[in-house]
């Protein structure tokens, strides 16, 4: 069970958080203009890689804020935590 440094509350145990899948997938502003394939790309396609991954997390049993983390899925090391709307601090 890893520790996550919530940008609003500080370091807390993983059990307080809820994972929200891949980060930086923006909802299209004009969905009606998209083809079925383009909409499906947004709707269904997600990466699941072994290695460094950008993820959305929610402090569900805390401040209930959403934020992003950069996590290495092979060893659960969290390389960065940053607020929604901010650019990832690492590549």
């Amino acid at each position: 069970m890893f520790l996550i440094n919530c940008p609003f509350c500080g370091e807390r145990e993983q059990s307080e958080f809820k994972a929200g899948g891949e980060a930086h997938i923006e909802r299209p502003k004009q969905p009606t203009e998209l083809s079925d394939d383009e909409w499906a790309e947004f709707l269904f396609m997600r990466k699941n890689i072994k290695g460094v991954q950008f993820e959305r997390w929610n402090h569900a049993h805390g401040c209930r804020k959403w934020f992003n983390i950069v996590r290495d899925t092979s060893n659960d090391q969290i390389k960065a935590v940053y607020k929604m709307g901010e650019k990832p601090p690492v590549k």
Partner: protein
Amino acid sequence: MSKNLRFKSSKQVDETYRISFKFNNKTYYGYKGDTLASALLANDIHLVGRSFKYHRPRGIMTAGSEEPNAIIQLHDNTSRTEPNVRATEIEIYEGLVASSQNCWPSVNFDIGGINNILSPILPAGFYYKTFMWPKSFWEKYEYFIRKSAGLGKSPKEADPDIYEHKYIHCDVLIIGAGISGIMAAKISAKNGLKTLLVDEKSFLGGSTIYDNSEFSKINNQITSSWLEKEINEISKLENLEIKTRTSVAAFHGYNFLLARENLTDHLPINQRENKIRHRLLKIRAKKVISATGAIERPLIFDNNDRPGILLSSAIKKYIDLYGVACGENNILFTNNDTAYETALSMVQRGIKVNAIIDNREEIDSKLSYEAEKNNIRIFKGYTVVDTYGYKRINGLSIMELSKDGQKVIGKKIRLSCDSLGVSGGWTPAVHLFTQSGGKLKFREDDQVFIPNKYPSDQLSIGSCNGDFSLEEITTNTVSSVKKFLNVNNTDYKTFEIITGINKSKRNIWLLPSDKILGKTKSFVDFQNDATAKDIKLALREGFRSIEHVKRYTTTGMGTDQGKLGNMHALGIISETAGTKMGEHGTTTFRPPYTPLTFGTIVGRNVGEFFDIIRRTPIHDWHVENNAKFENVGQWKRAWYYPKANENMHQAVQRESKAARDCAGILDASTLGKIDIQGTDASEFLNRVYTNAWSKLAIGKCRYGLMLNEDGMVYDDGVTTRLDENHYIMTTTTGGAANVLGKLEDYLQTEWPELDVYLSSVTDHYATISVCGPHSKKIVSKVIPDLDFSDEKFPHMSFKNTKIGQVKCRVMRISFTGEQSYEINIQSNYGKSVWEKCMEEGKDFNITPYGTETMHLLRAEKGFIIVGQDTDATMTPIDLQMDWIVSKKKYDFIGKRSLYRSDTIKDDRKQLVGLLTENPEEVLEEGAQIVADIKKSPIEMLGHVTSSYYSPNLNKSIALGVVKGGKKMIGQKLIIPMENKNINVTVADPVFLDKEGERLNAKL
């Protein structure tokens, strides 16, 4: 007791405190400080159990948590009885009752022993090969296999003991209080670090604490005396907490560890009352030091499993710590020097050592010379080829090893003994290190796996790091701990070490025999009866991966997780496959290191604390009025209120009729309520619901449907505009938390520019729904100041009002199709307002109804229940709810998905009504719907989602989803059941009052 196997003056055992205990129904005596194993050995009992597969007699093999054989059933009391308890770990107490496992009728005469004779036809994978043919027979085989499998018996009653969980945070956690752990604890605590030292045993000092030999000294003191002084010193340190009888079960990432602290298992039964039995420690340590020691390896030769064969180090421990000899005529068999320590311990106590068989041709150490001086015969370059004696070893034969160690040569020599100590060298206990994600490397010199790459801030020291000699342990511990903790000050300067041990070792994983392999039983995994032959067979049959060999042969899969034999399995695999050790990796060590009881895992979360129970403010009234309850998520909801001898059906029929003919009252407090405020609240609702919200007037209510982005129905409910920028949304009972989460997600991540604030207010209000033709009269009496006329208070509107001095909101909304009022009032007034409604409604036959009647009433109206009539594959179009999907809005959640190629298909499953040919026949929910039963395979068109007998329509009604159902109104379909086919007609899903006249009906 005929033999004298107990010796005076042992450190651990208090000979003034005698304890009686029962083993296999016979009473024995031991002393305080004994383990069950040491007490049994003192009574000359070696045979304690039968092996898993062949039911071979097995005895005590070790003196610690690695024990594979001596596992017993503890307590005969059915609620406390516990299987697979290691006799080597359990401390005896007054009243202890234990018995052997896996034998019938007794451990001395076990019918299952026939498997030993049948063993040639029980090879590895026997079960897989035999019982899978024919495939359909597996169920019949399984019954018998399951009956004979398994070692002990689980308790049949609830566990009466108390358990708890505790969080611990520390700077440094040290696992293992042997010599290196003690030294590390001293360095850590003396440097001001908050330190926790844990050990699974009841005493500190590990194996060094009974190392009393003249040949082992630190700074001119006998090693054990030196360590005792160290322990005395650290026990006074303020920063140091020491926990004995505490076994680390799991080492997870981020230095999160679980340990079980055993608090009462060693106490006399009558002192355990009301005490916590086990405590599960959840430890977060900034730094972890593993000092878990090493486990001695057995040697793999024919019949190496007889009772009386022990690890050489275990024999030493029983002598030096417990004052117990394992036999009167002992032989030792070794490939390294440590067995000579055992021999000299025996000599010191006057116990006869018949011989030492040593694999090595050359032996050159102080200890071996001392052994020779004491007239012990040493057979150099020899191996044991067989042992004799069924329930206890009585002899063995040895032969000379060839130069390459692959064959035996010369003549067989037979020797007699009643105990054999074996030593195959040492295996670092790296289980916890690998659990944490650590990577091992293989050290060729002495054939051991040692820690290589640490995944977190941790360190391994002492023999678990491959430092076996006293010199390495002391020097390396100080230097590596200093560096790891980044401290300079220690009390330790230089160490002057005297040791008799020479490191030489002759490692042969599988010792040769004069018999062919197929005729031998050389056990690698003692608990699961996996032999060297089985492992070689698995390789011959094509298994290569160590993980596959493990599962096929069951090596390492017992309750001991192969702590003794895993290394040999790896060795035999790499020798047979001609690969290098380490190339195959090791099998994965998984938590727990030693088994945990379920009680420890759940702690206090038992009974009503297992999951949260949510009760409405009116709950007590429901209980007093004989309600039956239904679980909806964590909520307890009144299901129906049976009167006298009514069954559920009769109660629901009565309640349903009353609600339409007179008046009904429902506790709807569990519905989710979300308070929505902000200047963009209307825009927000426009985006999350399928219909339009901007034009909803203040004081009006509207039903809304919420979709997922994939266009599928997610939740529904009525939302009311309380003010210009203030709404209250209701959600389904089960969906409340998820809806709030989803809305927050969109607000925070997709539309942060919107000025909207959400608060969950579900628990703040009690919601009382009064419905039926008399409802208006009743609520008018409850709230006399409010004008309930249809003109002033029409359907789908709300009023702020007061009951007495208490503010409340009344919504005129309906889930039953009847005229209906929902009173929302601060929770703590809920019960009194409910009672007032009951009082004022008495003359109108007001009838409380539960969720079952609510479901029936709404089904008559064709109203859906999200999650019952929908799953995550239904669009609003599929539900025939096109009317609620705005064509004008540019966007809302899920809109784009409503015209994907898949969602616009005509033959999607669509919601329809179903009427049975026989109006008395009620369909089963979940039943399949088909059109043609002659064609094979029968095409499934859909299934029944809701089904009731309607007392208001006097017939059976049902809702279901049917492929292309919208266009099938009037068509006949079939519901095939186990013993009959039911004919149904597809109908409109609205069965009652299509025009909605009842919403304003006057009586």
